[in-house]
């Protein structure tokens, strides 16, 4: 079965179990998930339901035990360390709840970092990083360190860093978790804007008002996806163009 061209993410019976000593904790159990290109999906679920674990697997930060994960048609399984790093760098952008910026680097340097590991030259790096800072509305703060930025600004820097490599997929794990309501909405505006421009976005969140701005909500409970009606969820909007990218 060949993956359909539109699916950016396809999970087939993906399972992951944490083992510590004799105890085994199944965190993901046969998870099937399909995210079309251009979709904006929210992932919800109670604490400990496996949301972060799922997102880390999608972001190639973590491994899974069984099943199959196709990212843009490529099977992501048992990647070597170098290849994992390369795929991470090329295909996904990750935004964390805790921002995870390097404190001793300026906003510009933080945004440029993924390009450094891609082997992009210094000038091109700076140029691209500036462009993406501009896109998140922070070109004026390019030479400030994270400590000199507000929470919302830090998260925008993190978004710019996630986007600078022009990934297929933007993954955000509770990106508004450390932001106030107003700032959260502004960040969601940014995500919607990026999504409208064609980027596929997956957001893990606890907040209903945040989740409702997605096309679709995926609910996790005890490591399983709760199945409702796949096209018209009660809370989400239908995906534009049926989940297929605008031609």
């Amino acid at each position, binding site marked *: 079965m060949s993956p359909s061209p539109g699916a950016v993410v396809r999970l087939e019976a993906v399972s992951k179990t944490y083992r510590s000593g004799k105890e085994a904790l199944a965190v993901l159990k046969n998870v099937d998930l399909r995210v079309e290109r251009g979709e904006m999906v929210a992932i919800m679920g109670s604490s400990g339901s496996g949301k972060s674990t799922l997102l*880390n697997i999608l*972001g190639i*930060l*973590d491994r899974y035990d069984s099943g199959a994960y196709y990212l843009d048609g490529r099977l992501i399984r048992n990647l070597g*360390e*170098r290849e994992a*790093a*390369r795929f*991470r*760098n*090329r295909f996904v952008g*990750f935004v*964390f709840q*805790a921002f*995870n*910026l*390097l404190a*001793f*680097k300026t906003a510009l340097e933080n945004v440029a*970092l*993924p390009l*450094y*590991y*891609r082997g992009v030259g*210094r000038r091109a*790096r700076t140029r691209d990083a500036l462009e993406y800072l501009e896109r998140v509305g922070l070109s004026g703060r390019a030479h400030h360190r994270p400590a000199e930025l507000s929470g919302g600004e830090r998260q925008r820097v993190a978004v710019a*860093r996630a986007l600078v*490599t022009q990934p297929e997929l933007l993954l955000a794990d509770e990106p508004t978790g450390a932001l106030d309501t107003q700032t959260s909405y502004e960040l969601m505006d940014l995500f919607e804007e990026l999504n409208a421009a064609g980027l596929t976005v997956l957001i893990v969140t606890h907040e209903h008002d945040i989740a409702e701005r997605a096309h679709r909500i995926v609910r996790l409970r005890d490591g399983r996806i709760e199945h409702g009606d796949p096209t018209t969820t009660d809370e989400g909007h239908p995906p534009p163009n049926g989940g297929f990218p605008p031609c």
Partner: protein
Amino acid sequence: MLGGELAATLGRNKLRTLLTACGVFWGVYMLVVMVGIGKGLQRGTDRNLGGLSRRAIFVWSQRTSKPHRGLQPGRYVRFQNDDITVLERIPGVIHVAPRLRLGGWSDAQNVTAGARSGLFSVRGDTPALLQVEPVEVTRGRFVNPRDLTERRKVAVIGADVRAILFEDADPIGRCLRIRGVNFQVIGEVVSYRPGNEAEHVRASIFVPFSTFQAVFDAPNRVGWFALGLAPGVPAEPVEQKIRAALVARHRIHPEDKDAIGSFNVAERFDRVESLFRGLEVFLWFVGTLTLLAGVLGVSNILLITVKERTREFGIRKAVGATSANIVSMVVREALLLTTLSGYVGLVAGVGTLEVLSMVVSRRDEAPLAQPEVEFGVAVTAMLVLVATGVMAGIIPAWHAARIDPVEALRNE
């Protein structure tokens, strides 16, 4: 980018960076200074021993003290030309310089050149002398084999002789007169030796050994021998063989220790040499240990740093850094830190030796002379430094590379 990245990382914890740098600085500084002082001590001793830093044995004739084969004690032993070839055949002996002196042991001869004159020591010598005595030809040449075979009346003069007889003029080709015989000056010499010994050479006139025998009425006579020994050959047994050969040839009682005098410079030289070799090894050892302690300090501090930077490495991996990227980053940091501080230590060490050298150069008899590190030593120190820099980085780097991005990012 590389430099900037590293500089930023190191600059983040200035105190720690400074402490780390101090460890390596001190190690290299001590290594350089100790090895340099060791070298200086060796040079100082060399100089104070004068030309004794050669593997030479001197043998001269005296009077017998025991009757032997019907000969009475108190007889003067006289060395002869045939002794030369006998001594040359002794294994371990590579140079035989037969020598003669006009008059008694410290008799100066009146030598004239035109209207000028002076009292100088006159000696008969062969080219072999240059191999056993630290005599340096500063003008013209020394006695050569043709001078010997043709019994030329030529003379090599000490610098003081030239100053007295010819002032500052070039003496080559000029004539001087010794005991009514004219000699043409062919060269000028000085001595490497300090003090008295050098003055001796500078106030001496060297004529070909064969010419000396012919014109100063010393046929088939050898005053004493200066012998050069092969490197690495134990000096004591060779001395015994030399004495035994001469004892046998000159009908001396085997027990008669007084008939022949000898002075074994090589033996002393070897002893001093091995002492300094031991000292050098010791100083390298101590210096390297000091350096190693510094490196361990660096490694330890980097290890702490790496643990603290777990989250940073996690972030880097999350945006696409490979383990190799992280390893090379940590090793480069270690390398930059150790080479920079080590280089400063090297420069400071050389500077210290330089100052020491200036201080001791004013004192002639100081036990230290020209303390300095040779280029090779500096290069070795530098290589040791780079190697230790890598060593210092490798364990922390290994720890850094093992960091799992998910774990690292969970880490607060």
